[in-house]
């Protein structure tokens, strides 16, 4: 299908791609204006949706099997169905555009190059869940995208797709762009809601604060990822049945893989979920590893996903045995291999990388981004960073590697939000899979010598 669309030279989609969301990304003849969007069939699905029963839209999304593209992979239609049927409060929809998972860079292209796709997807979704006020919560680091979205919303308003009487119907809707202030935790939906309410983005405890029941201003709130909301438009366009035929069962549709790291041609690739294996991503889509290098490790779904080792073999419950290159890029197989498809951020690492350095880099990120609300993550994330700092600096002893793992185990499953897992899974998997290498970076002779630096300081002061 992409053959008829002229793309910018050097930006043509790979033959294995299936462009749905990214159809207009890098097009030579495309701009973010509403006129361009309408010329290319934009807002047709909105008109169709406004003539449909709301429940019918929700059913279509449910039947499509669309799973959230933000990281957790939760079925979008099911999420919409969690709004209490007896609800009398206003319903809010929030587009989570706080794309901050390291290794992920898909939403920014949608917002930069095809903002109206998101706006149309949002209006349809808002109509379906009866939301009359919606927000796009965009991270501070996307100032350009915020301006583009503001402009797109103004254009849509001028055309009557937003504001009073959307598309000439009795339905009113307003969408606002809200800019974050630079915190990863605002991507966590309840943290995002707190931030939107003007508070520190401390994630809420669940129960009772499930957003679909007690979300923004204690009202039912649907929080969806940018890409997920765009898919809604395509589900209506194609029909849920045809959409569900894309991908594999329970892993339907397309998704955008963001490949970074040690490959010849890193970038974004929209593929049918599960139709491409890890090996094909590296060798076909990305042109293979850099010359003379060997694959060492892959983080397959954003920095929080557990790392995979190049020589690992995965025995699945259905009897399949997969090597790392055979893993299809879908939600369920990734989970079966002990990691996750997450946000689609694939980080490839070759043999030039020090795993101690990598985990230290990740620990640095999580220690910096922990919101500090609950004890295990607040204290543990910095502790892990400090230990891995020493491993990298060569001032750690072998037992520090196990200590690192012990701290990670004390965080996982004990925190208010999923950040606990996000920061402990990398450490757990790196220590498990690259233990020998990390121990190799330590010095056994320091085992008995290392004392608490404060004790040293205290002793120095006494002399």
């Amino acid at each position, binding site marked *: 299908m992409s053959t008829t669309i002229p793309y910018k030279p050097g930006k043509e989609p790979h033959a294995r791609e299936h462009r749905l969301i990214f159809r207009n990304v890098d097009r030579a003849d495309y701009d973010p204006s509403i006129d361009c969007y309408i010329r290319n069939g934009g807002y047709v699905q909105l008109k169709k949706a406004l003539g449909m029963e709301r429940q019918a839209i929700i059913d279509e999304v449910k039947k499509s099997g669309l799973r959230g593209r933000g990281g957790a992979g939760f079925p979008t239609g099911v999420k919409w169905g969690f709004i209490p049927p007896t609800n009398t409060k206003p319903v809010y929809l929030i587009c989570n555009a706080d794309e901050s998972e390291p290794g992920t860079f898909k939403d920014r292209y949608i917002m930069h190059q095809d903002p109206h796709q998101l706006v149309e997807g949002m209006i349809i979704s808002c109509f379906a869940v009866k939301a009359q006020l919606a927000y796009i919560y965009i991270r501070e680091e996307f100032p350009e995208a915020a301006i583009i979205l503001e402009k797109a919303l103004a254009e849509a308003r001028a055309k009557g797709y937003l504001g009073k009487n959307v598309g000439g119907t009795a339905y009113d809707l307003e969408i606002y762009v809200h800019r974050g202030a630079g*915190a990863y935790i605002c991507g966590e939906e309840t943290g995002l809601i707190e931030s939107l309410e003007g508070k*520190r983005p*401390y994630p809420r*405890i669940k*129960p*009772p604060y499930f957003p679909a029941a007690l979300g923004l201003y204690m009202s039912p709130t649907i929080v969806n990822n940018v890409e997920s909301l765009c898919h809604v438009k395509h589900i209506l366009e194609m029909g849920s049945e045809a959409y569900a035929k894309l991908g594999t069962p329970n892993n339907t549709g397309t998704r955008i893989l963001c490949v970074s790291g040690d490959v010849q041609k890193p970038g974004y690739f929209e593929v049918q979920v599960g139709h491409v294996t890890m090996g094909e991503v590296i060798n076909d889509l990305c042109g293979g590893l850099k010359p003379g290098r060997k694959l060492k490790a892959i983080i397959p779904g954003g920095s929080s996903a557990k790392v995979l080792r190049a020589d690992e073999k995965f025995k699945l419950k259905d009897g399949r045995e997969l090597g790392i290159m055979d893993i299809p890029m879908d939600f369920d197989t990734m989970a079966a291999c002990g990691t996750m498809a997450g946000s689609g951020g694939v980080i490839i690492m070759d043999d030039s990388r020090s795993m101690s350095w990598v985990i230290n880099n990740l620990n640095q990120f999580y*220690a*910096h*981004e*922990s*919101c*500090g*609300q*609950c*004890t*295990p993550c*607040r*204290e*543990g*994330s*910095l*502790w892990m960073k*400090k*230990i891995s700092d*020493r491993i990298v600096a060569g001032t750690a002893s072998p037992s*520090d590697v196990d*200590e690192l793992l*012990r701290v990670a*185990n*004390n965080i996982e*499953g*004990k*925190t*208010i939000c999923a950040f606990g897992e996000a920061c402990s899974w990398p450490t757990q998997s790196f220590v498990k899979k690259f233990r020998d290498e990390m121990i190799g970076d330590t010095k056994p002779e320091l085992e008995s010598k*290392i*004392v*608490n*630096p*404060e004790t040293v300081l205290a002793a120095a002061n006494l002399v």
Partner: protein
Amino acid sequence: MSTAPTPVPASPPPVDLVNVQINGQWLKFPKGTRMIEACRQAEAMVPHYCYHPKLSSPGNCRMCLVEMGMPPRPTPGQELEKDEDGFAKIGWMPRPVIACANTIGEGMGIRTEGKLSEECRKGVMELLLINHPLDCPICDQAGECKLQEFSVEHGNGESHFREEKVKKPKNVDIGPRVRLDDERCIMCSRCIRFTAEIADDPVLGFTERGSFTTLSVHPGKRLENNYSLNTVDICPVGALTSNDFRFQQRVWFLKETKSLCTKCGRGCNMEISSREKEVFRQTPRENNDVNSTWMCDQGRLDFHFVNSEYRLTQPLIKVDGKHQAATWKQAIAKIAEALKSVKPSEIAIIGSGRMTNEELYLSKCLIRVLGVENFAVIPRTGGADNYLRADDLNPNSNGVRTIWGVEPGANLDTVFENITRARARVVLVLGENLMKAGLEARQLQKIEFLASTHVLANATAEQSHVVLPAATYAEKRGSMINVTGRLQKLNKAIESPGEARDDWEFLRDLILAVSGTNGLYSVDDVFKQMAGEIELFKGLTLSRIGELGLPIMETSEKVPVLEREKERKAKGVIVG
């Protein structure tokens, strides 16, 4: 014991009960009970830091993580497996849950003991301690610190932490009465929630993030509301300490006495912490019909006069215009002689709304015995603050109404006029400073014989012919009726200095001296006699009042803090 069937008391409205298994034992609890409260009732203590029943539950400390399970949801037609008690077998969840914010459900299982719960506590405890300064030897909280207590129970005993600790501000001046040490703070947010939810003065908050999170006061603001010291009480560690109590005494040397605050008509229940003859601090004591768990700074800090060097410690008799030390016997004889030397209409007695019921009763007896008509009580009002402080600043105005049968302030003008016009020749003043109540020295000088009881040396004492050293609230037992009509009890925390005595003892001796009848040997006897005479106290004894008091009068007075607490409890925001 009688075998006759006792009448069934009117039963409270039925409450939905749910079955919960706690550490293997099935128990029933009212629906909606928080897991942590159910465990507490089952005597399975769940350690916690951030949870406070009077505040919202953010679930941030993670100390109360416990193992939880629910019966599996049966598929249609499926018969659930039952345990030996007949309850569906519990499907235990692999992950722990916080006990503070979750409510119980039918068939739920909770394990506060066992591997998972214990591992969680150990882990959280370790993490709380890694950046904590462990400066217990110089920390005021030591001895009543939850971090100390729980690390003894759940800690490692040894630190695995080999890194440098996070450095944060110390000795931060955040308000006139409260001091902050950020390194000790465990970020439980209790103080933040108190200032926002109870005191309506949200000046505290966190800045920075992650391990660098720092409690701080809002730029340009101070924690200076009249309830600020409650944050010190609820701080589980030594992060917030009281400027007043700081470094004054190790808490394990202190003796706690359950008593009342007498600084206004609310009668907030409190504990007086003392060592030997000295009071060191006063802290609120929970009473959900009076003060919840809070108290105002003004009330709790107003105790330094108890240990003041201006305390009167022996009776004084004025000889040739100069006070000379005397014995109680001499002083009382002198007063009795003066009272008997004039006509009842020439005597005036001025009482205080700060006197206990027992003192009021005995002074009323004296008034009756002497046939005095010139008596009044000095009123104090204007304290209401829409939180705890009552408009009436006398702690026992309802006692005055009940026992003296007068309104505080009634007849006061007449009594004062009689003094100014020298019609009152003998005046007895009980615990009040007349010069603060509006009289001047030259007016007092017109009195032929002025006797007064005082705690501290003051201008009225200066003018008195006989001065008696009185006991403070911290030195006596007795009862008072607060503004809501609740009869409550004061308890003696310390001994009075020198020869200072309880007013009731002096009044008894004075009655004996003027009328020759008596038979009262203890303050309990006074109450007993009073209960025989006054309908409101019928059937009561001083000890029967109990630590939380008894409602004995109907008043329309509401406690703003309690009203708001009830509302929040009804909404399920707090446990209450």
